[in-house]
């Protein structure tokens, strides 16, 4: 491999990327994806619109209502209405939850009798619905133990939960989503650019300069991938800054680990782009194919939406086939856990990433043909 030849090609690519303004996309797209998705994906539910019908109007029923009113997860709307009217409000999507406190609520409580509270939850979105449902249960349990305490004197020994969360103490969505998004962005953006750079020459016809000259396959691949590698290496830092400064995601691990793992991951992404450019002929097909090949597994198997450990059967194998899972494990480690290379799993995953990159790169240079087809 002659370095001067590669250098000439790399310089040409860089000046083309700058002059064609592709450079704007290189730096705008990752940031845009991070910001849009970082704000757009919300798992937790706050301020569910709650309609409470209190048929009892007693001291204890008001205590229960107060518990809902004081929770950040609920916004209590109106307290008196007909039952049918309340259900209608759910139908018209004006409320998310309807809670009905029956008559003689207090009386039965004081007599130690069983009481049933009516709860209606809108579960058109199952995830949101089940989240609200569990919040309601929590608030009711909380109120029940408070009431019990009052009735049986101060020192009653009921079960109290003393919970502590680890790694994401505030349970912020940003902390859970933004690192995963970095894994997604660094898979898509470099792959698209790498695919474009090779297919562009095929589409225009300048690929003949490669076919008809003494340029070797290795030189050509190096010339095409090196500029993308360097341009996107900068994105590794940019994305880091967005995550830690803009989204306030903590960073507890080693920056070196983050950096090296990201560069390895970049090589994988480039190789995917290269493989796609080998099988496609036009830029538009290359972009669409890259997006399909990277975004779908990037999203599904990154652990953003669903933890890999909870996957079963085929999807579990699939998750292990795509590289996203390994990189995202390291990402969550460096951002939230901070265990670093002390974890055997992280070591293994880093090794897998390196192997993955080498394998794809080797495959690409093997099937790239220096001949017209």
């Amino acid at each position, binding site marked *: 491999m002659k370095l001067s030849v590669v250098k000439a*090609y790399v310089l040409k690519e860089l*000046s083309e990327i700058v002059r064609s303004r592709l450079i704007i996309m290189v730096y705008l797209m990752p940031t845009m994806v991070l910001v849009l998705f970082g704000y757009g994906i919300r798992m937790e539910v706050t301020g569910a619109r709650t309609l409470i019908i209190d048929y009892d109007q007693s001291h204890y029923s008001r205590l229960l209502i107060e518990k809902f009113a004081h929770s950040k997860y609920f916004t209590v709307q109106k307290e008196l209405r007909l039952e049918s009217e309340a259900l209608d409000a759910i139908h018209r999507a004006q409320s998310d939850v309807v809670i009905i406190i029956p008559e003689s609520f207090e009386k039965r409580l004081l007599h130690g009798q069983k009481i049933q509270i009516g709860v209606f939850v809108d579960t058109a979105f199952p995830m949101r619905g089940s989240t609200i449902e569990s919040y309601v249960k929590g608030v009711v349990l909380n109120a029940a133990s408070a009431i019990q305490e009052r009735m049986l004197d101060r020192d009653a020994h009921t079960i109290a939960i003393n919970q502590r969360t680890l790694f994401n103490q505030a349970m912020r969505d940003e902390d859970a989503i933004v690192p995963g998004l970095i894994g997604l962005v660094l898979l898509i953006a470099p792959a698209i650019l790498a695919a474009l750079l090779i297919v562009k020459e095929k589409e225009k016809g*300048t690929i003949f300069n490669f076919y008809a000259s*003494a340029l070797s396959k290795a030189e050509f691949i190096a010339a095409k991938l090196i500029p993308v590698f360097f341009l996107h290496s900068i994105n590794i830092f940019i994305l880091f800054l967005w995550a830690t400064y803009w989204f306030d995601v903590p960073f507890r691990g080693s920056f070196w680990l983050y950096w090296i793992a990201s560069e390895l991951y970049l090589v994988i992404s480039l190789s995917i782009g290269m493989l796609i450019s080998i099988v496609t002929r036009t830029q538009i097909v290359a972009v669409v194919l890259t997006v399909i090949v990277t975004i779908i597994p990037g999203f599904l198997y990154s652990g953003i939406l669903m933890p890999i450990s909870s996957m079963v059967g085929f999807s579990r194998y699939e998750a292990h086939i795509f590289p996203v899972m390994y990189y995202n494990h390291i990402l969550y480690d460096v951002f939230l856990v901070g265990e670093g290379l002390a974890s055997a799993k992280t070591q293994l995953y880093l090794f897998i990433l390196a192997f993955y990159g080498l394998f794809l790169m080797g495959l690409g240079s093997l099937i790239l043909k220096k001949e017209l087809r």
Partner: protein
Amino acid sequence: MRLVVRDVSVFHKNRLGIAHANFEANEGEIVGFIGADGAGKSSLIHAIAGVIACKGEIVFDNHTYRSCKEAEPLKARIGLMPQGIGLVLYDMLTVSEHLRFFADIHDLVQNEAFETYKTRLLQMAGLEKFQDRQAGKLSGGMMQKLSLICTLLHRPKLLLLDEPTTGVDPLSRIELWEILEEIRRSEGTICLISTAYMQEAAKMDKILLFDEQKIIAQGTSEALLQTVESLCYDPGTPCVEPCIKTLQTLYTLTPLASKSTQTPTLEALFFVNALKNDKTMPPIVLSDKEKSDFDGDVLMDAKGLTKRFGTFVANDNVDITLKKGEILGLLGANGAGKTTFIKMLLGLYPIDGGELRLLGKTIQTPQDRQALKASIGYVSQHFALYNDMSVQENLLYFASMRGLPSETAKERIKRYAQELGFENYLNALPPELPLGINQRFSLASALLHEPVILFLDEPTSGVDAIARAQFWELLKCLKEKWKIAILITTHYMSEAEFCDRVVLMRQGAKIADDTIEGFYAKHPQAHTFEEIFLEYFR
């Protein structure tokens, strides 16, 4: 240093590219590949350049190869310029950046000798003043010259140029040939050049004629012409079959008794070859049209038509009139504004300035146009046919688009199929048809509604000599029988001679407008129309 090509065949997947090609070339020789699109020229050039695998063997500089891998060590000594204007150039790079890039990828030592050679090339190409201009902003001719000097930069001993002059303005074409002439003399380079222009054959040491994936003849221009000299006669000469008659010449296989005033051209070889293989195309007869004529003499009158794209003026104040029963040729290089002009006439582009009258009516609104659509026929540069519909279905579709009753349409399609000789292909799909048949049926689709004006945008480019000759015969027939007015663009100068009147265009402006006789009268020293054309470009 010698190039020997032995029994070379190339396949693209399962499609045959070229079959059993044999030829030899010596140091400093220019070998010309002449033939229509798809005749196999590019396939052979690609095989010799080592960018596609082939069967048989190619020997260059005592090195034998047939696959791309085997050719690899030779690539430093081979230069390839593939087909397409500016194909190997990067639009965003400047002229000097191109030269540096090509020097670098060939790993050339950039010493003083190299600089001198580079400057010489730049001067030959007339590009030394444009070194800072980006390639995307050069004219087609300049792009081709830049591609050529980039290909010459590493001093290849074998130069392969695939249609370097197609679509290039005539002056640039001459300059390209001058560069080649000088390089082969000073460097002893073997040059293989393909072209669709028969006239360029005169500059070649040896000619290979391509037809339907075969080399049908080879030798020097004189020797080849000698073989057909006794087979070309004046069109009026009586002849027994087999023979082919065109507007200018009659070709036969057996020498006739009568005297011939013809000087044969290389095209004759294609006709003779067709005769030998019994591949004559079905003759054309045309019956009268059903609709009555438009009365009035001037069918189209454009005054000061202007079209701008941003700051670029594609058509600048063009005045052209078209009379009934007239074939008007619009000639110019690629990018001269021919297609833009036709698209304005058709209403495909809005007119930015000037006045257009069609069939005596001034065109101002789209409604004006709508009323005239039934009188206008159009065949575009790339025949706008649907490739997944059969010929019959395509024609029915065009007919119903024109609002023709389906009974009339069916009856006319049947008649045209007989008259224009594509009856056997009615159920075939357009991609399966020979280019010449495709062209006839495109024309038929434009004739279904019996227009009084016909606009044809480069209908003959890439089509072989025989189909072209017959196409012109058909146009002449249309003109005489239907009194139809035809506006046709072409870049074959030889075709200008078949037109009644010719308009020359250059950089969006009209530079000359006269009858053929008028042009020859103004330029008495010229022998061919090409020479006249050149006068206007100097």
